[in-house]
């Protein structure tokens, strides 16, 4: 019968139109990006270590400059170093918590919250 020939082609067209619509719609932002698997654990460990090191360096530098300025060597540097270490641990904790929740977070490093 002719209707059996017509009906599927129109359905098919509809389907294809819908698919095209979806394809041309703004793309999904959270598509994965390259280099997830290979970067692996070493990169993550490096990242956590870097967080600690960076905050420590900030504490060290800030303390040194404050000591120079106020002539309180070495006390402010020690205090700032302590704060720097704490901040480093805090940052490292935030990063590793994110990494643990979602290993893909390495590709979407998110340091807020």
């Amino acid at each position, binding site marked *: 019968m002719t209707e059996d020939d017509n009906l599927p082609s129109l359905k098919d067209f509809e389907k294809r139109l819908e698919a095209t619509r979806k394809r041309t719609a703004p793309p999904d932002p*959270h598509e994965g990006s390259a280099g997830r698997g290979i970067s692996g654990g070493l990169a993550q460990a490096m990242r956590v270590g870097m967080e600690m090191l960076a905050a420590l360096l900030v504490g060290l530098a800030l303390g040194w400059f404050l000591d120079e300025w106020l002539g309180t060597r070495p006390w402010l540097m020690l205090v*700032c170093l302590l704060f720097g270490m704490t901040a480093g641990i805090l*940052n490292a904790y935030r990063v590793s918590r994110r990494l643990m929740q979602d290993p893909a977070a390495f590709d979407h490093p998110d340091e*807020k919250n």
Partner: protein
Amino acid sequence: MTVAHAAGSPLEQFKITRLVEMEVGGLDVSFTNSAVWMVVVIVAISVSLLFAMRKGSMVPGRGQSVAELSYEFVANMVRDNVGSAGRAYFPFIFSLFMFILFANILGLIPYAFTVTSHIIVTFAMAITVFLGVTVIGLIKHRMRFFTLFLPKGIPMVIAPFLVIIELFSYLARPITLSLRLFANMMAGHTLLKVFGGFVVALGFLGIGPFVFIIALYGLELMVAFLQAYVFAILTCLYLNDALHLHH
């Protein structure tokens, strides 16, 4: 850089050489090998993008597709992480991403110099982002900007300590940002250099390290992209923090 300097130290590839000595008002502005590659990077970006978009056809060719893809990649990144408020900063983030990406990738060419393997370059970029973002946040929110350092629902007794710690954590941002890019680039290129040395030293037997070098090149290409991406997306996130203050 892998084969050429096989005899020298793996760190020699990072050496700055002054090609044209210059000085302006006591400031050393010599044109160095690093500057050469910075120029190469921006020329490569501009020329390839302009060339790819020369026709601007409805149905893009391969080059045009890549150019459009890079545009949309960064545009999506900015939109998803900053929202519509980030639109004004899109050209800057796109430039930043492309600059780092091209510097990383062009640095992989043998004999090339990697601009981003110098901490001062990555730090200059990171501190620019950091200061820019902080200034944007201060202009937009004035004193309210400092609530970024005070988590909600914290007892007043430990609040000052937490503010200091959060401040340190905030100040650490440009350091981590620059250190990450610098360390990745330097480590990768040093490794390539070391194994390049093996290939030359072993001569005929160097086929093993040679295969390894090929694999390492693939990995380094990926790292080159990933690091540019990480730098750009962290810039977006910092910008988002400053614009919307939800820490």
